[in-house]
Structure formats: structure tokens, C-alpha cells
């Protein structure tokens, strides 16, 4: 159950990526699934830095990768502000180009790329984002 802590800065994204890609490969995922996990985690961490912490350099991101049976479970923890994902509207990518607003793709992608995406807030231990990817999918 490897765990690593990274400073919540955009610079860390590449190192976080290397960390989860390694885990996904060890879990026996094919390259398409490895990329899916990689991208979902990048979007999640990007959001933690930008939205939970409200900017760079205000805390850490703790990342844990669990391989079990056919699953890879990624747990991301931060100490930023809590987040209720149900408050976020789905993006509208059917809109004409001119009307597109540059937001809402991250969460949407995470849900498409992973089989489970769950946000929890624990007073004391902070935000816990758990994402699961099944090997079959």
C-alpha cells in the first residue's frame, strides 16, 4: 500500500503522475487504463491545488495506491476546504464554441475515466477523495 506526500503545487503533478502510473502498471493495467488513471489523478490533484487549497503552496497532497483483486484504489487526502461535488453542474459540451466556459471538464473526466469517484470530508483528517478503477474496464 504505497503512500507518498507531495507539496500541493502544480510542479508536483508530474511526480504524482509517475507515482500512480507505477502503481497502475503494477496492478497489471493496460496502457489505455494506465493513462485513464494518470489523467483522472492529475485532474483531481489539479482541483485540490486550485479549489480545495485555493492556490499553490498551502499544504500537501497525500496519495495512496491500493491494489486489490482486480481493482486499483487511489486515495487522495488534503487539508483544504470541503467540497460538495453534487453542487457542480455538468459541463455543456454540445454548446457552440463561442459559448464554452472553460470549467467543469476535470470532474466530468474523473467520473468518466474511473469506475468510482467518492469525495468525503472528515473533520480532523480533512478531504478524502477515493477513486477506483477496475481492471476489466
Amino acid at each position, binding site marked *: 500500500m504505497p503512500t507518498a506526500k507531495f507539496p500541493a503545487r502544480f510542479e508536483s503533478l508530474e511526480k504524482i503522475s509517475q507515482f500512480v502510473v507505477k502503481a497502475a502498471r503494477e496492478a497489471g493495467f493496460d496502457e489505455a487504463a494506465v493513462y485513464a488513471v494518470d*489523467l483522472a489523478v492529475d485532474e483531481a490533484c489539479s482541483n485540490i491545488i486550485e479549489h480545495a487549497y485555493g492556490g499553490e503552496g498551502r499544504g500537501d497532497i497525500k496519495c495512496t495506491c491500493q491494489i486489490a483483486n482486480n481493482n486499483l484504489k487511489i486515495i487522495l487526502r488534503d487539508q483544504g476546504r470541503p467540497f460538495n461535488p453534487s453542487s457542480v453542474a455538468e459541463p455543456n459540451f454540445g454548446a457552440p464554441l463561442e459559448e*464554452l466556459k472553460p470549467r467543469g471538464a476535470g470532474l466530468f473526466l474523473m467520473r468518466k*475515466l474511473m469506475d468510482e469517484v467518492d469525495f468525503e470530508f472528515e473533520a480532523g483528517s480533512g478531504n478524502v477523495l477515493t477513486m477506483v478503477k477496475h481492471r476489466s474496464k
Partner: protein
Amino acid sequence: MEISTSSYKRCDVVKANGRVDSYTAPELEEVLNSVTGNGTYKIVFDMSNVDFMSSKGWWVLIETQKKCKRYNRGELVLYGIQDRIRESLDLVGMGSYFKIFDDLTAAVGSF
């Protein structure tokens, strides 16, 4: 990430290498802004060496596409996009905003 630009008679080719994420997307944005700032709105984005692209990167391209298509003065097209990146582009639903070429010459030759 490194970025290089080649200028042709009708268009510029902007080639990025490596990872486009929240950390590097601002750099890509700067380069594309300087291309459009120079009055070039026909742009090929060469992704043949891009091996990771997050939504932040796509948004930079979408904003550039808006500028390019305004007044019908041009377009941003994509070349060399790797399969898995293309899948994520379609997955997020932005695929329809970009013409995609498998061949750089065809992309440049489309302008």
C-alpha cells in the same frame, strides 16, 4: 515541456513536447497567444510528441480556437494526437471542436 514554432506561408505549426498539465499549460497559452498576437490565426498544433494532456491543456486550445475562428479568419487544427489522448478528448466531449490530421503535410496543406 518544450514548445517550438515553425512559420509557413499560410500558417504556423506549434509543436509541444512532453506533458501538458496545469503546470505547463500556461506556457502553451503564452506561445499560442503570441502566435495569434502576431495576426496568425491558421495554426497547426503538432501533438506528435505530447504524451499527456489534461483538461487545462484542452481549455487553452479551446480559447485559442475561439480567437482563430472569430471573423472566419482561421482555425486551429490538431496533428499527431496519440490514441489515448484522443480518446480522452472524445470522452470529455471536446472532440467536435477540432479538425484532426494524421499527417502534418495534410494539416499544413489544408490552409
